[in-house]
């Protein structure tokens, strides 16, 4: 077993689809949280194979897409400094800031480097003691363990030339914010399988109970997504609302303790701004006071950079599942992946990019 092909088997997908068709009696709106799931759904045309009564709306689960514009602007300022090596996951390089992106800083002579792990950034810091090495630490609960460990490692080794520009978001508070909004249409959630792999799913139980929504931690392969939808629909049809784990091969109820321990050693929960959405209470992580020397926003005094977002991009509404990407007037005209107006068109996990790539122009 390789845990891949088995979970992409069209025959299995077909049977699960049949079961979904067989049990649906009324219209339901289900949101998939994670951008990886959005990508899988659109690429495999899952939304079009489902009964018409089921509407899938795409959630805010793409870390690149929700990183606030002002954080990108702060990154651009730091990366332009002469003595800085600015390191980042590749997908942040083309995210537009107010007037440029990190790739443009690089072409203007900035030392901007792509890394695949924050530990590579720590290695660059070891090798360049006379330079300031900054890692762009963005993401959800899934990248937090790695980003925390990079700071922990730098601290252990006394690498005073390493720091992180941190913009970390937490999923459950955002799910709750969406549910409590008067405009909310979501009746059931596919929770993000890898976020739950780290944090477990106990946190979702009070949310499922309070808002009476089924929440199903779900994997990323097409069959996982379909099975997640089946589990949500089964609950909705009989009026249940509990947390039910689809992604059993990776998610344990209490998550990954080793990772949780390092996250809470280095980071603490704080209020956090989401691009296009605004501030959500207790929905982010920041560097703890004891480790503030590794906080690049403080080290480079960029905390006072605040930016308003451009009006033509409706990604905030898209990220809340209130509109589909093709309903944006700029979609496919002013805004395309090569020349994106908003972050949801940059990242391959962004809903706008997925719709564009797979030419999804109808709901």
């Amino acid at each position, binding site marked *: *077993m*390789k*845990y*891949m092909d*088995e979970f*992409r*088997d*069209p*025959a*299995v*997908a*077909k*049977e*699960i*689809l049949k079961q979904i*068709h067989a049990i649906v009696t009324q219209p339901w709106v289900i949101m998939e949280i*994670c*951008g*990886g799931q959005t*990508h899988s759904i659109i*690429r*495999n*045309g899952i939304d079009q*194979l489902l009964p018409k009564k089921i509407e899938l709306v795409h959630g805010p*689960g793409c*870390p*690149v897409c929700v990183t606030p514009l002002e954080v990108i602007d702060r990154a651009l300022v730091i990366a332009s400094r002469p003595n800085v090596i600015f390191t980042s*996951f590749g997908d942040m390089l083309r995210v537009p800031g107010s007037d440029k992106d990190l790739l443009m800083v690089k072409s203007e002579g900035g030392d901007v480097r792509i890394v*695949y*792990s924050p*530990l590579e950034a720590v*290695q660059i810091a*070891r090798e360049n003691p006379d330079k300031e090495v900054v890692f762009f630490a963005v*993401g959800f609960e*899934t*990248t937090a*363990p*790695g980003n925390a*460990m990079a700071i922990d*490692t730098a601290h*252990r*080794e006394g690498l005073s030339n390493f720091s992180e520009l941190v913009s970390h978001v937490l999923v459950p508070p955002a799910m709750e914010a969406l549910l409590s909004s008067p405009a909310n249409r979501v009746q059931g959630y596919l929770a*993000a399988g*890898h976020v739950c*792999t*780290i944090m477990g799913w106990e946190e979702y139980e009070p949310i499922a109970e309070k808002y009476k929504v089924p929440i199903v931690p779900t994997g*990323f392969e*097409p069959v996982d997504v379909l099975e997640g939808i089946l589990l949500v629909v089964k609950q909705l049809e009989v009026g249940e609302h509990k947390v039910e784990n689809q992604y*059993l*091969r*990776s*998610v*344990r109820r209490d998550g*990954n303790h*080793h*990772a949780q321990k*390092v996250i809470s050693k280095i980071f603490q929960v704080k209020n956090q701004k989401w691009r296009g959405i605004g501030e959500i209470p207790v929905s982010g992580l920041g560097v703890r006071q004891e480790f503030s020397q590794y906080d690049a926003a403080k080290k480079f005094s960029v905390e006072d950079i605040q930016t308003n977002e451009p009006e033509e991009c409706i990604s905030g509404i898209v990220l809340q599942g209130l509109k589909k990407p093709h309903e944006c007037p700029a979609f496919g005209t002013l805004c395309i992946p090569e020349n994106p107006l908003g972050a949801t068109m940059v*990242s*391959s*996990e962004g809903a706008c990019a997925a719709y564009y790539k797979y030419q999804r122009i109808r709901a």
Partner: protein
Amino acid sequence: MCLGIPGKVVEIFDENGTIMGNIDYAGTISKACLAYVPEISIGEYTVVHAGFAISVINEEEAMKTYEVWEEFIQAAASEGVDVYGNPLPKEDKEASV
């Protein structure tokens, strides 16, 4: 950043005091940090996210899930079409690596 696919641990070693491993994704080997799955052994599968292994695939659970699905496969094998009678779409391999 988020498409963590499972890979098989083929080597475990120490690098700067941190447990690391080489992970095989159907022939492509890449390095990942194993500090968050210290219980893992060579030959086991793991999900890697942004350079860090975040879980050991639970073989027993995967088998159980798959056994349920086996029945679906048997049931559908003869037909090979989707619920609308169209052939099911072929998997786009390139995008998932």
